[in-house]
């Protein structure tokens, strides 16, 4: 445990701080050594741990699926190929179920979202202190190993989905159709004057619901994973509080981890399904 000399609140804070690289207050570039320093770096800083783990997991996912795709034969499939095909068919079925238009991008998008988020969430099951401890041996102070507990990661993906939504909305329905959806619904009237009054009201409602989509996508995943991580950290604090509480904490951690397997899969699935549904809404007129 890293925090023998730390108080509980310091321990938690330590675990919730990203390895931030950016410009220090004195103008030099470097890694922040305290959370305060990290916060001071502002927008023009980057979370090295989030980037490292998410890229590593993404590359891992693509490596195995590419391998399966390369060896994909029409004959009897092998183990890895079977597994990948099983996932691909599962995603394909989900997309077929919720997406009614034709777009070759949606299914690969869903596959990427599902597997990537699942792998990022899976890092939550690694005991909270293991990787930061190993990183500590190499002189790295902060290490947040679950990229999906970083809002940057979840918002990055949600904004990606949102961008695709806007792009296909405008592409399929033209700019006028898209603006029409934003302003002429849900309240309509035959009377042009009443309709003109309705436009700002409609726009307010529709705009909020439009903006709510990526924000809810990102915050749902972030919130769930952040809370889960927090519980793991709180359980980890119990290890310092004597043998009995430590044992109890071990049992709790096991139970929470088992329950968390459900959550990480479910969150990945929800993100994917909602992304498919949003893409479907972008392709269809209401």
């Amino acid at each position, binding site marked *: 445990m890293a925090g023998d000399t730390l108080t509980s609140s310091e321990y938690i804070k330590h675990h919730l701080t990203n390895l*931030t690289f950016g410009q220090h207050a004195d103008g030099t570039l470097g890694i922040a050594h305290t959370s305060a320093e990290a916060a001071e770096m502002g927008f023009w800083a980057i979370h090295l741990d989030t980037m490292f783990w998410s890229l590593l997991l*993404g590359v891992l996912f*693509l490596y195995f699926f590419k391998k399966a795709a390369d060896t994909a034969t029409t004959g009897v499939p092998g183990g890895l190929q079977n597994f*990948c095909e099983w996932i691909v068919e599962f995603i394909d079925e989900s997309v077929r179920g919720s997406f009614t238009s034709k777009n070759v991008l949606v299914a*690969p998008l869903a*596959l990427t979202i599902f597997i990537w988020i699942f792998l990022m969430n899976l890092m939550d099951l690694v005991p909270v202190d293991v990787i930061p401890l190993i990183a500590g041996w190499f002189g790295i102070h902060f290490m947040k190993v679950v990229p999906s507990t970083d809002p940057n990661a979840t918002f990055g993906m949600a904004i990606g989905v949102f961008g695709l939504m806007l792009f296909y909305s405008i592409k399929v329905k033209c700019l006028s159709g898209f603006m029409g959806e934003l302003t002429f619904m849900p309240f309509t009237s035959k009377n042009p004057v009443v309709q003109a009054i309705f436009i700002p009201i409609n726009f307010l409602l529709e705009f909020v619901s439009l903006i709510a989509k990526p924000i809810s996508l990102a915050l749902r995943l972030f919130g769930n994973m952040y809370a889960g991580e927090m519980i793991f950290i709180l359980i980890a604090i119990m290890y310092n509080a004597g043998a009995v509480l430590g044992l109890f904490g071990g049992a709790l951690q096991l139970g929470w981890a088992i329950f968390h397997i459900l959550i990480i899969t479910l969150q990945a699935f929800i993100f994917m399904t909602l992304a498919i549904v949003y893409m479907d809404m972008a392709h269809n007129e209401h």
Partner: protein
Amino acid sequence: MNINLTLFGQLISFGVFVWFTLKYVWTPIMGALEERRSGIADSLSAAEKGKHDEELARQHAKEILLEAKNQASEIKAQGEKRASEIVDEAKDEARAEGERLLTAARAEVDQEVNRAREQLREQVAKLAITGAEKILQREIDAAAHKDVVDSIANQI
């Protein structure tokens, strides 16, 4: 927990991953799946066709067998008919031959009877002449009385 450049890093990586998945993962795997699906469909339809062909062949064989059976019984009937014809012919021939032989034998018998009768007649004539010679005890001009003797002989 600060929103910073990481957001763009994640956004860009996400885009690259999606592009990579579309290009190198999803398309080939779906292609392989589709190919396998169509291969299995082809095999199934080929099997169905084979079954159908077999059914047809079996029916055809049955027809040929039936025809062969019919032909065989026809040939057998013809053979039996021909055999009885041959027997009848043989019977007729035998009967005709027998009759011919009988007729020939009868003719021969008649001939023999005639010849015997002729011989008898000659002998009787000779006997009569001899008898007459003896009775008359005189020389008789055989030539002068030949017609008389002949007439007597003929009357026998």
